[in-house]
């Protein structure tokens, strides 16, 4: 089976895709993007989180053939021009990364959350990140990183001339 899909803005045409192959395996093994992690393959951990047509999903639960003609964005596609995305920078600065296995998925989810809600309260952050498990950090630093990213984005808008 052939799958045509855009990943991080680049068009891919991949042949010999297996009908039951997950988007997660497709991204890692066929497209060669290994930022998206495989930790449970049952939708519980969120380490495989990506966007499909702008919607946050667990790529382990999407069949590769279902994304024919779609646009997928992975953690590798968040930054631009060789720079990490501000959400990624906030995770680095807050020390919200230990083993790092959950981090790509958490960052894609946090990116999605902040895109929808630029100034979330802590309950909202906990709720919106409830699909991402982390075995190391105890979540405090992750929560801190998200509020740091939100605060910086707020500052950026202000210095960007949004004041009336």
């Amino acid at each position: 089976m052939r799958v045509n899909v855009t990943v991080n803005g680049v068009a891919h045409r991949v042949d010999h895709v297996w009908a039951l192959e997950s988007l997660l395996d497709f991204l890692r093994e066929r497209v060669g993007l290994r930022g998206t992690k495989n930790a449970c393959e049952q939708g519980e951990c969120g380490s495989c989180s990506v966007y499909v047509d702008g919607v946050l999903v667990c790529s382990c639960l999407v069949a590769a053939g279902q994304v024919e003609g779609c646009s997928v964005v992975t953690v590798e596609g968040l930054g631009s021009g060789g720079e990490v995305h501000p959400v990624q920078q906030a995770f680095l600065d807050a020390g919200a990364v230990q083993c790092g296995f959950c981090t790509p998925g958490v960052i894609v989810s946090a990116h999605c959350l902040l895109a929808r809600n630029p100034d979330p309260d802590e309950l909202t952050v906990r709720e919106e990140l409830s699909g991402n498990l982390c075995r190391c950090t105890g979540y405090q630093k992750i929560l801190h990183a998200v509020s740091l990213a939100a605060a910086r984005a707020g500052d950026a808008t202000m210095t960007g001339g949004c004041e009336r």
Partner: protein
Amino acid sequence: MQGSGSVLRPASWGDAVLLRSQHPEASPICGGTDLMVDVNFGRARPGALLDLTAVAGIDSWELMDGGRTVRIGAGVCFARVIDELAGQCPALAQAARTVGSPQIRNRGTVAGNLATASPAGDSHPVLLACWGRVEAESVRGLRLIDIDDFFVGPKRSALEPDELIRAVRVPAATGPQQFAKVGPRNAMVIATTSFALNLDVAGRRAGTGIGSAGPTPLRARGAEQMLEEALADRWDGPRGVGESVAQEFGALVAEAASPIDDVRGSAAYRRHALAVLGRRCLSWALADLEAAGAA
């Protein structure tokens, strides 16, 4: 055979129904949040997939019967039920809020929940309480399955092998509705047990549904009858329908269950929890009814 070993992606509903009969080896897939888990763990090895997500119009909902019924297409995910249907289908939206995580709610559908027919499916008690109907279609035609006839055993439904769920029809709320679920934590929880209540003020009927406390989702008929008698001529202002009615209602809900002991909880705990959920849901719904009457 053409189509085997691949993902079939019909663009129209007619093609989907045709492919379903031509390719019995193909498993339907919508959100994939049940099917792909089974595939990833080797519990399911379908020869092909019949992906319904590209079918035109499958991810839309509409009002029918002059606004009295909401018809929810098979591709509408739980996140959209929450965002768009909380007004017409409040209990369904409440149940949808408790499903999995944001990622699961962005993909999982009511139709997929139904087709899996798990006794723990969170939409099921609500659809029972609301007297929902399932549109099942094959090349032989379209039929409407009453929700009371839909669940026939653990993970077994009345769907025929060549049928697809096209949509679910849910009567729009005419009064207060409640859904409550018990589980070990707040997120990502399969129900230990759950309960839904629908006060159909216009129809003078009370609807109930119990999840995760029997081989299939169940209706608590005795509790419904008791409540309808208690409300009798007080549907528009339930004065005097108080705590003792709620207690008795909860007890009848627990009585209707046939729970087992399993990893998520004991039968005794489930019965106890159902009595509490039944009582609470009714107290909340009566308060809503009172508030609506006072307004």
